[in-house]
């Protein structure tokens, strides 16, 4: 998962946090009283692991709320099996993650974790979860290497960056019908990796490449290269700050090529910086547009007073995989892990099954479009 600073909505974050606090307080009460009466699944909890404070707190809160909603709905439907939610606030910091993971391992009632939210903390907490046999399902970590460490507890419900790149290339070729693609990257691990995958997938259609630097503000040489290559689409692998500047300077120089970017740009900060130049930009993301699932959308909005955001629906799915397992009587870590590994079922975002590395077998990548200053869903991109 990309790590971005969303200073844009501190009030929204506060509102979300406050409303979420309200609901979780009520549930704990309900959970303890209900759990005491029922015998089938006593003292069972799942955890949320990720940032609730810190610079990227908004992203974590989106995910936690998805989990919270799943747990609330489950407890409402199953009076005799009450599950509680434990929160592990890592602040998105890989260094804090190790201590929290050990703490989660030590709490015997916690039998599954939704998270860790970001790739960095997944990397440091992963070995500890694997050793403790505590199954995890991440709703947001996209680094492709995470599943290659041999941690049998690791799972995720979204496509990694190795599927997003080819999807972007597919969209460029099939929907935009671009024959000349120019690929730019920002030399970051995320951006350069993604740009390389797009470049490979697009093959002969690539008419030029360039690398910029993060923090750079003048892209005139890059814009000249794009213009003189005659490209009709430009893919940029990087984050929203440079994306905004680049597209603005492209448009000012009269370059009309379609601007295609990935989830690192799916942030209001992009439109804030680029203004009108952002119009028509295509943003790919391995995340479901929350408005696709009306029922979930409405329930989420009612519970938290705000619309579900990036990766809320994925978190809801991840939590439900575990909750179903608990309902089936898998109330210890070992059996729940087995349940998750063998799981096959319909989530709201996709049909969920995991391969032996814990990667989802069904991946959906969506294209979003900037229209009238808003990021709106365009269409699902065919993968494979």
């Amino acid at each position, binding site marked *: 998962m990309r790590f971005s600073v969303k200073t844009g909505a501190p009030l929204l974050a506060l509102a979300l946090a406050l409303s979420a606090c309200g609901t979780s307080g009520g549930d704990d009460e309900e959970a303890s009283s209900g759990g005491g009466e029922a015998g089938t699944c006593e003292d069972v909890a799942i955890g949320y692991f990720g940032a609730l404070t810190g610079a990227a707190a908004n992203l974590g809160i989106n995910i936690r709320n998805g989990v919270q909603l799943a747990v609330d709905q489950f407890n409402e439907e199953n009076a005799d099996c009450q599950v509680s939610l434990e929160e592990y606030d890592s602040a998105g910091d890989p260094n804090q993650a190790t201590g929290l993971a050990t703490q989660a391992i030590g709490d015997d009632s916690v039998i599954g974790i939704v998270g860790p939210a970001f790739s960095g903390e997944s990397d440091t907490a992963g070995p500890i979860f694997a050793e403790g046999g505590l199954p995890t399902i991440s709703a947001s970590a996209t680094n492709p290497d995470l599943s290659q460490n041999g941690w049998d507890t690791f799972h995720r419900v979204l496509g990694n960056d190795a599927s997003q790149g080819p999807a972007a290339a597919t969209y460029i070729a099939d929907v935009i019908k671009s024959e000349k693609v120019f690929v730019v990257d920002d030399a970051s691990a995320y951006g350069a990796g993604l740009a390389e995958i797009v470049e490979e997938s697009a093959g002969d259609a690539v008419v030029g490449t360039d690398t910029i630097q993060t923090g750079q503000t003048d892209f*005139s*040489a890059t814009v*000249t290269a794009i213009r003189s290559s005659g490209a009709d689409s430009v893919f940029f692998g990087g984050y929203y*700050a440079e994306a905004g*500047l680049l597209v603005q300077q492209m448009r000012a120089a009269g370059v009309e090529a379609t601007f295609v970017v990935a989830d690192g740009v799916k942030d209001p900060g992009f439109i804030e910086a680029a203004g009108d130049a952002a119009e028509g930009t295509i943003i790919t993301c391995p995340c479901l547009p929350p408005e696709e699932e009306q029922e979930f959308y409405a329930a989420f909005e009612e519970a938290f007073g705000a619309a579900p955001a990036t990766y809320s629906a994925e978190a809801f799915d991840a939590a439900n995989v575990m909750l179903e397992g608990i309902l089936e009587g898998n109330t210890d870590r070992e059996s729940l892990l087995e349940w998750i590994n063998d799981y096959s079922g319909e989530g709201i975002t996709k049909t969920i099954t995991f391969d032996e590395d814990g990667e989802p077998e069904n991946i959906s990548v969506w294209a979003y479009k900037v229209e009238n200053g808003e990021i709106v869903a365009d269409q699902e991109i065919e993968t494979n």
Partner: protein
Amino acid sequence: MSFLFNNFVELTVTGLVLGAVYGLVALGYTLVYGVLQLINFAHSEVWMFGSFAAVWVTVALGVAPGSAMPVVIGVLLLALLAAMTVSGGVALLLERVAYRRLIRLDAPKLVALISAIGASFALAEIMGLRDRVAGWIGLRDTLDPYVRSARDNTRFQNPLETEGLFTVGGYTVSNVDVIIIVSAVLMMVALDQFIRRTRTGRGIRAVAQDSEAAALMGVNRNRIIRATFLVGGIMAGAAALLYLMRFGVTRWNAGFLLGVKAFTAAVLGGIGNVRGALLGGFVLGLAENYGSALIGSEWRDVVAFLLLVVILLFRPTGLLGESLGRARA
């Protein structure tokens, strides 16, 4: 290589545009160095505050692009005035808070350098935390359009629409390109005349040459130092508006990279030399663009700074090399 030749005009014009901004900011470094032999590292923040002043003027007036020409010119002039006022004000504040006492006590140059770096961080962070600052004084909601997304890019809604004027060598030169280059050259000429012909300018040259002798001749040294900071700040304010017209975005930490480049331009042209600053800016802007075109954008800084090293190896005092004090009257 053929890419460079095929797009030579475009790379040259865009390089000159960026170079003009470097040059105007470089003036602030060069003037202060000429008078005090100090590198004012907080000058980048002087520029950054000016850029926000220009943005806020356009936010407050809310002029859409495509308005009538007199309105557009009025808004731009107001933004220019605001940027120059704020930049000049911040420069004076810097002189008062970070320098004056140190200069009076004749503190070692390194102390003033650290003081400047500290001031630079403080000013940048204050801008990055402006939403909190507004919160403390209870105006967070009132000032929302000015302080929101304090850590992200802030956009300048340019009231002037970019239009092509004429085409040379396959590149359509825009009105903004022309405005930036011409204004930078005009301001440089005006400043040069100011330093050569006015009483204050003579004072600046006198203090640069020998501050003690100047004081004995009745030049008020403190007043001259303040004037130097003020002039540098005003130039940075103008540079801020020109930069926004071309690049359209500013940020709390945008000054850092531009400051390093402008300082480089000042050294390249000959630090302490007013005309050298603009020349150094142009050379640096062109070198960056040509370098990017030759090997790729990730090499732009490598090429630009290699050029700096090579020039300084052969001309250690920079291209024009003449100090402020020795400029002819």
